[in-house]
């Protein structure tokens, strides 16, 4: 439940932020009539993401035994790649994404191109939506709690993300965006490290790679993976009561490397800026938007 809540909160807020910036800018420039174009693009992308999620789940359900474990293992490792890229990409883009979006909206309005607005919203939502689908699938593959709780967490995360997006749309500056993305970025990296361990475990169980070394310890007597706490920790941070050396080394390598790069700010641009329009149609409405 917490896993789906965190993922949807983080990813959902990114979607809400993009929509809030675009819609807020249209509102302030007196172009409310273009709202429909933005929502059309967003809803179409959302529908495509749901279809992708259903296809992914259907594929996994069709498979069985070692083929299913291999599919889940590779999906988890792919999700780790996407998560890592997304965390560092978002940090890099945070400084310019608002200006870039407003610039694109200006161009679309100047050219009277509704299709450009539809495409803008479609691509922005599709990119974040597909990431969300991939991550939820990877998490659902490891979680062994009820589907209801998983969906409840996702729904709660979606509601909070939508509320935060609405605040940005209304021009509120109560959301400390940099701190939000830093805090959730750290949590996401922790979750991704867990997916590294779980993904390797799935590939080991599928027989594709065999066990990567011995299992140096066994903590099952203290926290069994069959208990509620064990399942929770397994899903959230990749807890394994008896991991192999391969899982341990890869987990810690990723965690130390990822967190180290994130904390040290590696990959953050120093002076890169997006091309700004010569004369923006409207200034940002709030300090929150202005800092984007």
């Amino acid at each position, binding site marked *: 439940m917490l896993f789906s809540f965190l993922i949807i909160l983080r990813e959902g807020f990114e979607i809400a932020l993009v929509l809030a910036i675009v819609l807020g800018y249209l509102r302030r420039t007196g172009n409310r009539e273009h709202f429909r174009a933005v929502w059309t693009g967003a809803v179409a992308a959302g529908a495509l993401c749901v279809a992708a999620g259903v296809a992914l789940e259907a594929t996994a359900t069709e498979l069985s035994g070692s083929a299913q*474990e291999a599919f889940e293992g590779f999906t988890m490792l792919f999700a780790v790649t996407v998560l890592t890229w997304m965390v560092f990409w978002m940090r890099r883009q945070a400084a310019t994404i608002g200006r870039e979006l407003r610039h694109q909206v200006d161009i679309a309005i100047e050219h009277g191109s509704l299709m450009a607005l539809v495409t803008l919203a479609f691509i922005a939502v599709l990119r974040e939506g597909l990431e969300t689908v991939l991550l939820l699938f990877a998490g659902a593959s490891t979680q062994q709690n009820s589907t209801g709780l998983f969906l409840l967490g996702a729904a709660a995360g979606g509601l909070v993300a939508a509320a935060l997006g609405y605040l940005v749309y209304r021009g509120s500056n109560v959301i400390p965006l940099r701190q939000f993305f830093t805090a959730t970025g750290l949590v996401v990296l922790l979750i991704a490290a867990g997916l590294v361990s779980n993904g390797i475990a799935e590939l080991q*169980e599928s027989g594709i790679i065999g*066990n990567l070394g011995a299992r140096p310890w066994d903590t099952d007597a203290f926290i*069994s993976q*069959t*208990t509620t706490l064990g399942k929770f920790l397994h899903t959230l941070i990749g807890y394994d009561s008896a991991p192999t050396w391969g899982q341990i080394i890869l987990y810690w390598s990723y965690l130390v490397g990822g967190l180290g790069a994130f904390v040290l700010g590696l990959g953050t641009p120093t002076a890169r800026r997006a091309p700004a329009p010569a004369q923006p149609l409207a200034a940002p409405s709030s300090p929150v938007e202005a800092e984007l």
Partner: protein
Amino acid sequence: MRRGILLTAAPLLAAIALACTTGGGREIAITAEATACTPATLEVRAGEKVTFVMLNKAGGDRELEGIEGTKLEEVLVPDGRTRKINYTAPKETGTQKLKCYIPGGPSTIIEVRVSAAQ
């Protein structure tokens, strides 16, 4: 102050202890050997909660999971280790099936015969 800490910590520790609990009724031993898992059949009563205590002496990892509608999540039992797995029999009589297998390899089936509750 100390009393406040105790009052706060006690329910938290109780909740963690509850979350860590694995117990669940009668214990039934299952042993994984190199070529098969034993016993081949188990007897439980309808609705009974039992704990499978699976010892792996196979010389490699083994997994146990329910198949064909049997509600038992997949559990990996590393070589030389024991795992306790809770299981609740259905309320209807009949036969349930557990698959005991080498990850990515061959398997043996354990039949769970569910008799009427006493």
